[in-house]
């Protein structure tokens, strides 16, 4: 730091100056990872000079970027990315949420049940779990149902965390197991398929880009909410110093309920997109999604100790995730390596966060 940092004697104020944003580091990491893949594409003999993101054969689709791969990279992280937007808020508030993957499974099942079409290729729907009166409902019904299921699950999480003082890890672990059970119970383990056309459009519309649009739209919305509203400020304050937040008059318990409920709603929305995209719902959907979502947030610079991080960071973290998965496919490496490297990156991100916090504490 410069000499102005001990300033007491006659220094002027500066309302504008801001620190180097941590998101910048995540962005640099993203670029570095892309560069590594590009270099490997050039130097590995069997790759024959391929590129991860660029397509120099521009007469194919007229762009220098490889739009197909770019789409895959973002598309494959969008659905989990929606969950990660919720995880970001929970972790910033100093908590953790292990339940979104199971909430996705349950919500997908329930919402799909309300999205059944009456006729499949002219024959009666063989998989419908309710009677005819419940078929061909307007698409708003499964949407509202999905949001309601997500809200309920998130609300239970929030109430448990805020009012029973069980550690969030345990409370949401309970929800993780219970919601998965409920998803299996819902149709006795049978998958539910054959949704109406408008329902199918949620995750397949706009020539396949709609999950990306929904993810980015929600990211922008929650970026704004976290940065510019009282809700956001209190979320950071609670994660930063819960006692100080309480002493400052913030209703900490009520706020936590709201944070976990929002995370539940986002898990419900993610389920909606996933079930629609796959045109089917299964009780096993979303297994381990919560861990990928947490990994995205941590890679994006959200501190597991709370108080630090942003949606922008999480979106960048999700992109890093997507680039690594696509990059491994492009290098024709087995999926095992992907998972091992994912594990290493998660641990590295946490170590980095801890190291950053220790440095901050040492300065104080």
């Amino acid at each position, binding site marked *: 730091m410069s000499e102005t940092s001990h300033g*007491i004697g006659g*220094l002027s*104020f500066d309302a504008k100056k801001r620190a180097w944003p941590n998101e910048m580091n995540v962005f640099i990491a993203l670029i570095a990872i892309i560069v590594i893949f590009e270099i490997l594409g050039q130097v590995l003999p069997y790759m024959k000079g391929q590129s991860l993101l660029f397509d120099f054969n521009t007469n194919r689709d007229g762009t220098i970027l490889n739009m197909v791969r770019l789409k895959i990279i973002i598309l494959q992280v969008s659905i989990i990315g929606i969950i990660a937007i919720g995880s970001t808020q929970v972790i910033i508030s100093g908590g953790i949420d292990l339940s979104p993957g199971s909430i996705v499974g349950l919500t997908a099942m329930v919402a799909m049940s309300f999205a059944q079409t009456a006729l499949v290729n002219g024959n009666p729907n063989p998989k419908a779990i309710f009677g005819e009166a419940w078929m061909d409902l307007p698409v708003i019904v499964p949407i509202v149902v999905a949001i309601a299921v997500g809200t309920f699950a998130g609300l239970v999480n929030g109430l448990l965390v805020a009012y029973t003082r069980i550690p969030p890890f345990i409370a949401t672990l309970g929800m993780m197991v219970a919601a998965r059970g409920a998803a299996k119970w819902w149709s006795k383990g049978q998958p539910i398929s054959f949704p109406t056309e408008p329902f199918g459009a949620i995750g397949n519309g706009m020539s396949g880009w709609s999950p990306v649009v929904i993810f980015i739209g929600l990211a922008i919305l929650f970026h704004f909410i976290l940065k510019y509203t*009282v809700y956001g400020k209190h979320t950071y304050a609670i994660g930063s110093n819960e006692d100080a937040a309480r002493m*400052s008059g913030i209703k900490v318990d009520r706020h936590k309920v709201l944070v976990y409920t929002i995370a539940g709603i986002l898990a419900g929305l993610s389920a909606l997109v996933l079930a629609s995209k796959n045109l089917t719902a299964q009780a096993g959907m979303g297994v381990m999604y919560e861990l990928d979502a947490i990994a995205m947030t941590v890679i994006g610079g959200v501190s597991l100790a709370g108080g630090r991080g942003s949606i922008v960071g999480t979106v960048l973290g999700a992109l890093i995730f997507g680039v690594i998965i696509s990059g491994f496919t492009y290098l024709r490496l087995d999926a095992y390596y992907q998972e091992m490297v994912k594990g290493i990156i998660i641990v590295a991100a946490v170590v980095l966060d801890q190291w950053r916090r220790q440095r901050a504490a040492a300065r104080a």
Partner: protein
Amino acid sequence: MTNDIILETRNLTKHYGGVHALQGANFTLRKGEHVAIMGDNGAGKSTFVRQITGVEQRTRGDVIFDGKPVFFENPMDARNAGIETVFQTLALADQLDVPDNLFLGRELVKFKFGPFSILDYKAMRERTMGALEKTGVKIPNIRGTIERMSGGQRQCVAIARTATFHSKLTIMDEPTAALGVQETAQVENIIRTLKEAGEPLILISHNMRQVMDLCDRIVVFRRGRICANLDIKNNDITGEDVVAYITGAKTQPEYADAA
């Protein structure tokens, strides 16, 4: 006479399980008066403050603030009633910046919309600059997070927070404990400003010179009890006398049961 009193406690007592941290404190503070609370570590000074400001709930006794008995359920209640406090633990959110901390829990908003009310950052920044100027606190970069500040700067932020809002009573728990010479002088200037404005103050401090310079009266705590009430403005009381009360070498006759 009575409506001249801003704060009074009667028989204020706090037990933590078997620890009798505060025992039967009878204390009065008149409007415009600056009173120091002194006493050894663990004497019960901070405990006394926590009972008045709603951080904790007292075991028994009464608190009468501004003529009315009060039962603050939380620090926000006390703050809304007009008591601004600099706690010994400062109560700052490390990852937030100076305006965020000054307005924590009472943010200025542009549009009211429940928890999703839109923050008015510009107004908060401007009022923060105003408060810092008014108190003479100099912080090079108010947009920097608290975790990047020195102990003294943190203290200054916590003090500027109390000065940002008009209050009927200010309480400072060891506000200069972590400060260097210049910063201490600054805090003392803030206190003088409060005195000129006629705002009453309770100052907890271990610094004898500071207390002698700034305050009208010293109340001494010893092992959870008040053992002396010294009018230093009107009586000839030396630092040695005060130390004698703090250490227990002397006790005022009216507090004899405290020994």
